[in-house]
């Protein structure tokens, strides 16, 4: 028994502690990492300029036109003296126009991308009734929309019903009505006939002979033609700007910037834009800087109509208008240096400002309206004064790896700063209630690299910051749910603006010096 008990293993694996000293993590951060979402270019001197390109769809198609749901009801009551209707006898035929309640536009033609027509018939006659519902100018593959359906015999006390949905996708609608000179109008025809195999039946004045309803539901055109009207579209409001939200304080001074706006009008109608104001809003500092650009703002900018190519793959030849803003014609750098978290806009778009000068040949292709391509180019010659970036990252350290064996020790953050920027770094840990539990880096300075008289970095500066981690701090780190990163940037030799170069690097290394338990 003594032998057996003395040979019993006390744990799953051998156990001892070792003292480790070595690098754990490393990162090399250059301009390319910092500006990963943007294009960068470099001149012959290695100076970096950042280019941001984006595209905005300025208006939605329903702000130009829309076809609302419409119900077309056909009710016919017997208007004459009593008669007997024999089998297989047409007793109702009629051609009618339906005027669609299209807002703003006078359409003559439309191609339907999606939508249905729902036919509902009610019959109180004592014989089956055959309906033929025709829209002669709704065509697909050259065929008109014609629906021949029947509804069973019924009575006043027990009418019969018929309902069917018909898909309108792909139909070309002529919206000029039965006279071909109307707008927003659908011509249709209804014929009713008694059943050839049914009984003859008497009718008297007032009897309902036809009760048919056609509902146009969710009709969305992929193309419309006609006169689009003189619609005015106002674009007012504030747009959040992503990068501005993570800056907490400080000043940024840019040397220059160039903004190129290329507006593409793919609508077959003239447009006129009037930019009343664009304002850079920094809601943290309560500073708003309106854009000053006399050549662009508070004047009409004409966008001529697009034309059709006849090529189904690229049916529209848009017209374009290019607007350039830079230091010579605007205060764009001040506008951007304000670090806006919002851009306040007051823009007015006028459709057909000169009226129907196309002879009702305006057109719109779905998803081809007005597009603005933005190209913002900023040479990274700047100064930063305590420009502070604040970001919160979610943490799930426990999921990364098993950190149980890591014992007390000191982690050392080694930073080799090759930027002409003094950094101040703070890391705070938060628990699940967003309460501060620890400060890993209270307020540590990482001095800039060594610069020459031209403010070019000629050597990196090395800084070592010790982060002691005992059992309590380890527990706080492992239980942290998020981490606040607060980084402050100040360029050297304020207020001079200096270039950020492609070869500038910040090397960060985390070195562990502590106990590790082998288990």
């Amino acid at each position, binding site marked *: 028994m*003594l*032998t057996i008990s003395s*040979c*019993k*293993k*006390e*744990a*799953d*694996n*051998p*156990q*001892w*502690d*070792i*003292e*480790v*000293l*070595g*690098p*754990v*993590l*490393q*990162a*090399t*951060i250059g301009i390319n*990492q*910092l*500006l*990963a*979402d*943007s294009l960068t270019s470099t001149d012959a001197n290695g100076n970096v300029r950042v280019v941001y390109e984006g595209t905005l769809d300025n208006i939605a198609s329903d702000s130009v036109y829309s076809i609302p749901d419409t119900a077309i009801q056909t009710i016919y009551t017997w208007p004459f003296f009593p008669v007997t209707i024999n089998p297989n006898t047409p007793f109702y035929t009629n051609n009618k126009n339906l005027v669609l309640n299209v807002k703003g536009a006078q359409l003559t033609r439309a191609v339907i991308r999606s939508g249905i027509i729902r036919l509902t018939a009610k019959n109180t006659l004592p014989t089956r009734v055959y309906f033929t519902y025709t829209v002669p100018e709704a065509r697909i593959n050259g065929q008109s929309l014609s629906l021949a359906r029947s509804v069973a015999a019924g009575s006043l006390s027990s009418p019969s019903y018929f309902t069917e949905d018909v898909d309108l996708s792909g139909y070309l609608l002529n919206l000029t009505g039965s006279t071909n000179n109307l707008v927003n109008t659908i011509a249709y025809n209804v014929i009713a006939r008694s059943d050839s195999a049914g009984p003859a039946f008497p009718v008297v004045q007032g009897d309902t002979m036809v009760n048919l309803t056609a509902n146009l539901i969710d009709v969305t055109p992929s193309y419309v033609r006609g006169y689009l009207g003189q619609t005015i579209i106002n674009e007012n409001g504030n747009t959040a700007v992503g990068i501005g939200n993570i800056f907490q304080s400080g000043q940024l001074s840019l040397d220059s910037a160039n903004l190129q706006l290329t507006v593409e009008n793919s609508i077959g109608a003239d447009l006129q834009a009037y930019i009343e104001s664009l304002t850079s809003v920094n809601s943290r500092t309560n500073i708003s800087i309106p854009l000053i650009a006399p050549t662009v703002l508070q004047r009409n900018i004409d966008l001529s109509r697009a034309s059709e190519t006849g090529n189904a793959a690229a049916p529209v030849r848009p017209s374009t208008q290019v607007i350039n803003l830079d230091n010579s014609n605007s205060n764009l750098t001040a506008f951007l240096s304000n670090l806006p978290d919002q851009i306040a806009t007051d823009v007015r778009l006028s459709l057909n400002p000169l009226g129907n000068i196309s002879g009702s040949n305006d057109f719109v292709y779905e998803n081809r309206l007005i597009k603005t391509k933005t190209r913002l180019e900023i040479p990274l010659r700047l100064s930063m004064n305590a420009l502070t970036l604040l970001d919160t*990252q979610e943490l799930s350290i426990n999921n*990364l*790896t098993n950190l149980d064996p890591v014992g007390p020790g000191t982690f*050392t953050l*080694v930073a080799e700063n090759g930027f002409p920027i003094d950094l101040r770094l703070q890391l705070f840990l938060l628990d699940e209630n967003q309460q501060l539990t620890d400060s890993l880096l209270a307020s540590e300075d990482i001095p800039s690299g060594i610069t020459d008289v031209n403010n070019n970095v000629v050597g990196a500066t090395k800084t*070592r910051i010790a982060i002691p981690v005992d059992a309590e701090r380890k527990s706080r780190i492992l239980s942290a749910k998020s981490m606040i990163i607060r980084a402050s940037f100040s360029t050297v030799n304020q207020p001079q603006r200096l270039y950020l170069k492609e070869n500038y690097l910040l090397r*960060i*290394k*985390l*070195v*562990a*010096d502590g106990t*590790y338990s082998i288990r």
Partner: protein
Amino acid sequence: MKSVLFSILVSFSLLGRAQTSNVRNEFLPEQDAMYQLTFSGEYFFASSSLTNKLANDYFLHRFISEETKDVVSGKLNNQNRFAAGFNGAFEFLYRPDSSKVNYIFTLQHHFFTDSRFSNDLFELYFRGNKGYADKTAMLDDSRFRSLLYYQAGIGASGTSKSGKTNWYAIGSLLLGHEILDIQTDKTRLYTSPDGEFIDAELNLIFRQSDSSASNPGAVNGTGFGLTAGFATHIGWKTALHFGVRNLGAIKFFDRSSVVRSDTSLRFEGIEVSDLFNFGDSVNSTVINDSAIVQTFLSDRRKEAFTIYTPGQLDLWLERPTGFKNSTVALGFRQLLSVNARPTGWCQFGYPIGSHVFRFHTQYGGYTGFTAGLGYEFNHYGWKLIISSDYVSAWLNSRGRSQGAFVSLSKSF
């Protein structure tokens, strides 16, 4: 005190198997017996520097304290060695009436760990690299092998017509279950003073059997083994014994892993630059250990390889002392295909009725000088042997070897 008593109780010579002066060997059945069944088991640990305390703590998964390591550090040389193992055996001997040849059937289980290592390797492994700041840890020419295999043998033994010589020979099928074999040539590790980088020079080979087939009965390799020997009178009442045991080789199948490295590298931490890609959401996963290792242990293959089993060569002389029926033996032993030095030994045997007591000393192998005791008891065809060659090391709190052998036989 209990442990001392316990040690004395189980500490008797392993070499009880080689004790007789009447030219006998362990594969000859007892006189007048037709059958003999034997169950035996042994374990051992021996080292030039590792203490029993550290070995016990390691194998029993106890916490290894700094004090335990300090004792070992005080004994380390530039080159050190250790071995540990466990063997279990079942033997069946059969002597037909009509034949002078005896038939031998054996089933055995072997677990053997053998290593040669530098003092720096020990310090690095058990204390970490912090003590090597601004120093190079020399890990050259190190070996580690852990082998577990099964053995099924069939053979014969007999005695010459003159009765002066006896012999035995057993051929065995070896079934390799598990092997881990690591060999380094020029392998060094430099830790920078501030820990900002580690330079490694790695020239090593790592071989391992198929780790996915690890259930107890799994066979990951096959081979052949040989055990043979003889004993003969050479005059002056002296018997000469010569034998080889468990000479063999196992070829592990081509599902085995072989990793070679011949490279130099500087490790400066796991690369996490992507975490600072401020253009994207920070959702990267920190690289795991295997990703680090794979960068320099890139030559990974699945291939077969052959290893030699730890064999043993024995040569000894034995004769009566003239004092009652006591005997004395003087021998030489060399373990083959492992990192042991030659061993010289001497044994004194003293029978009293059904009991035989033995005193054993030896020098060499994996450790230094050790003294052991053995006890044999024979009664009505039963034979019990218990022994240990390492009683002296057990009694020494800083001893570097331990082991015990137990055998129970029945002849009928």
